């Protein structure tokens, strides 16, 4: 038609060239779309399906009878009942496990293991992908699976009983496998009332409003100043890196017991053990009497970089891989220029005996004890040991997470920890922690808090020392000294467990 227009000046480039380039650009753009679709539909498919906000799960919550959750002895921890309309709801026989198990409620969604294993419990995810593909078309598309835990309900109940009215947490693991034996957090709450449609609204509102925060699973989400139990981490870093040996003594230590250790103008005080006199302590004695100044000096000698990186091997600085989400434990707030993220030598010295900016979850400290107990090998912690449904069962085997230190170094620390529980001076710090008839290793902690708040009471340890079968971390919020609350709880629980195994 009317071509050439004004028949004007010659064309610089034919228009066709631009069109071809345009086509190439559009082709590339659609290639990116296809890649994007591939990313979400194939590469990310597994992690997105079964997310707690997957509508398939929410739909399933209404009509699927979820799988049961049982402890290591077969005790039912979570099961389902049907209401008057024939719609299922969850029943939780014991309140002791509530913070770990969580709840599955029609009105309030899911929490805890019920949330983490929502896809498996409600059965939208099957063990076999091909089978799963087929199941999408069947009317009976849900294949609920049961969970079996390594947890012992008896131990868990005893832990909750011993914590009593205090806020606190107990984590017990088998150091050889990483299996969690008890994971208590107090106060607990009534998950059954939240799952029961009749009482859900009131129970949820009351629990959420409780200033003691029962919904917080202190074992994995509570971050506490660790105090002296962190000295075991410093010991692993110092001995592991070779910065100190078991015979290392610091001549600055005895005089500093009286006047305090001056670090860049800041005075680190101790004063717990004037009775050790003017003789510099060696490593085992320093652990036994929990000498802050010895560990401050050890930390300074080890250096910030080494302390941070050895702590990271134990799990600090990143969420610990576990069945439920975990909070990140930290040695320091990070960002400092002193090395390893420390702001200066004062912070490093304080962190070395668990003060400063150091924060740890009870699970993290239980792993520290477990690493020492298992000869320096850290097993991946887990609580779910088996998934089973009508398509068969899948067992979750123990898995080595990291080799933290050599067995020799672990042995040296173990010996020192035995001294801290069984030694003449050590006993004073850890009354009640020793399991009768069994050589027990441990370390207590008294975490000083800002202001006049009562310190947190800590204990970590394991038994029997020569063949560890159980590792433990006990925390009692504002429970006073480590000796006062945490040590006896730990001793009783380890004894109970070893008794039950022996039977």
């Amino acid at each position: 038609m009317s071509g050439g227009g004004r028949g004007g000046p010659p064309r610089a480039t034919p228009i066709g060239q631009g069109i071809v380039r345009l086509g190439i650009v559009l082709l590339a753009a659609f290639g990116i779309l296809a890649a994007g679709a591939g990313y979400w539909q194939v590469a990310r498919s597994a992690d997105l399906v079964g997310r707690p906000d997957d509508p398939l799960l929410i739909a399933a919550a209404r009509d699927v009878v979820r799988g049961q959750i049982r402890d290591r002895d077969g005790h039912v921890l979570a099961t389902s009942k049907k209401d008057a309309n024939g719609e299922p709801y969850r029943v939780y026989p014991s309140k002791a496990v509530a913070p770990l198990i969580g709840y599955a409620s029609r009105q309030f969604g899911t929490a805890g293991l019920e949330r983490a294993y929502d896809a498996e419990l409600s059965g939208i995810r099957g063990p076999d992908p091909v089978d799963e593909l087929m199941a999408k078309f069947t009317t009976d598309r849900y294949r609920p699976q049961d969970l079996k835990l390594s947890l012992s309900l008896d131990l868990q109940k005893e832990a909750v009983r011993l914590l009593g009215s205090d806020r606190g947490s107990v984590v017990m693991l088998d150091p050889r496998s990483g299996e969690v034996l008890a994971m208590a957090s107090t106060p607990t709450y009534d998950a059954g009332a939240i799952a029961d449609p009749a009482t859900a609204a009131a129970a949820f509102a009351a629990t959420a409003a409780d200033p003691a925060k029962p919904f917080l699973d202190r074992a994995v989400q509570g971050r506490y100043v660790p105090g002296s139990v962190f000295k075991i981490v410093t010991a692993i870093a110092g001995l592991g890196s070779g910065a100190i040996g078991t015979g290392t003594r610091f001549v600055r230590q005895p005089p500093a017991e009286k006047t305090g250790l001056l670090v860049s103008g800041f005075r680190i005080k101790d004063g717990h053990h004037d009775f050790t006199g003017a003789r510099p302590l060696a490593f085992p004695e320093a652990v036994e009497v929990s000498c802050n100044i010895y560990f401050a000096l050890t930390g300074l000698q080890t250096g910030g970089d080494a302390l941070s990186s050895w702590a990271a091997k134990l799990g600090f600085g990143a969420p610990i891989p576990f069945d439920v989400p975990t909070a990140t434990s930290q040695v320091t707030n990070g960002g400092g220029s002193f090395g390893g993220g420390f702001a200066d030598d004062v912070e490093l010295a304080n962190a070395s005996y668990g003060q400063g900016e150091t924060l740890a979850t009870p699970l993290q400290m239980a792993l520290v004890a477990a690493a020492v107990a298992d000869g320096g090998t850290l097993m991946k912690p887990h609580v779910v040991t088996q998934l089973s449904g009508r398509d068969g069962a899948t067992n979750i085997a123990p898995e080595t997470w990291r080799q933290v230190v050599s067995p020799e170094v672990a042995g040296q620390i173990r010996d020192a920890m035995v001294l801290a529980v069984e030694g003449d001076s050590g006993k004073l710090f850890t009354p009640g922690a020793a399991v009768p008839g069994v050589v027990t290793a441990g370390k207590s902690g008294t975490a000083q808090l800002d202001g006049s708040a009562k310190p947190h009471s800590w204990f970590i340890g394991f038994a029997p020392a020569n063949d560890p079968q159980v590792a433990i971390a006990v925390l009692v919020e504002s429970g006073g000294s480590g000796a006062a609350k945490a040590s006896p709880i730990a001793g009783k629980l380890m004894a109970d467990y070893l008794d039950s195994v022996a039977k």
Partner: protein
Amino acid sequence: MSVATALPGRLTFGPIRPRSRRRELGLLVLVAVALVVGSVSLGATRALAEGSASFAPWDPARLVVYLAALGMAHVAQVLAGRRTDQVLLPAVGLLGGLGLLLMERLPQDLAGSAFGDSLGLAGVQLVWLVIAITVIAVLSIVVRSDTWLRRYKYTWATAGIGLLLLTFVLGEEANGALLTIRLGPFSGQPTELLKVILVVFLAGYLSEFRPLLISESTRLGPLRLPPLPYLLPMIVMWALAFGIVVIQRDLGAALLFFAVFLALVYVATSRVSYVVIGLILLVLGGIAAYHLFDHVRVRVDIWLDPFADPSGDGYQVVQALIAFARGGLLGTGLGGGLPLVGGRLPIPAIHTDFPLAALGEELGLIGIMAILGVYLVIIERGLRIAAAAADDFRALLAAGLALVVGVQAFIIAAGNLKLIPLTGITLPFISYGGSSLLANAVVVGLLLALSDRGVEPPPPPSRSRGRFDRLLRRSTS
């Protein structure tokens, strides 16, 4: 001039001679077979969900009406005898059919109007699809000259702006955007039509001033620009449309207009500098919009991390991604996806903004690739028509029309897939909605008309003609 007597009488537009379109017919048959199989798949999945085994197609009546409309469009083209493209109609037919199947499997009360309640979602969509196919057929047959588009470009531009201003007066707010005009029982989204008008205007303007735009007289530092007076009206037109669209909060349309504008300027001038300037303006505008407008900031934040608030702001995007993920490679099958929670869909705007997510779930990655492939086919056809066009105006017009479809499909698909921030724009030919279907039908109708390679030279006069042909000639002369 002795030949004169041998010629038949008047030939106002030349005799209309039917011309078979075997390729189009073949492709349409494939489309029909695919859609019937799809309908059977949907029907069987639905029946199974209710506990029975049946392989009857889902709602065969609507499918028959739709296929009949496609067939009629084909017959009309055959009778018109123009040598137009034979791939566009089947490609559009397949996408429209997929959209129809999708609407049939969604809850029918999504239509949400008095008109829609009686017909249901699929019924309304079918009505618009039939109208759209009719528009395609009529435009491709009737439009023989582009002068009316070419000559009145400023009139078109004015009409477009008027249409937008009308939205301010009569506009209704939906999802935070002023998009819809309502006149009595009818409502429509003028930006859909505006995109066609914009392309017509740009093609007219750029083809007329192309030589001047290429010549360099203004220098701005290292940049060589055309004489400013020639660039000004275009910038004004664009800024006006852009500004109004931003005020209307229709980000998708703004992005579409901008991309089409830049691409057409590039095609017309082959100047990378224009594209670079345009992209810099886009980035600056985007940053400014992010800081100035809450609705832009919310969209961008959702895009950056929808999982930050999966049950609040990020809800739809997260649900769309989960839908894609559930689909996997092969999909859940038509009717097998989109679990209802308490009788509601997880994604409320699935029929307008997220049809790709729904198809992604039910047809899987394999299906998505095929759908993207069909869009590429439409783009390829459009650009080929542009490349073969007789002059600059037609070339730019065809390229612009192809771009409108391609870029719009890209913007919404990329939004669904979290490659760019989500914008409320429709997926051409698949999304529910009359405005969108009509506007895209105009695009395809014009492309078909532009693809006409002229009436074939008639055979020598001595050859005898068929009776049908004589009949037709008698009726038209």
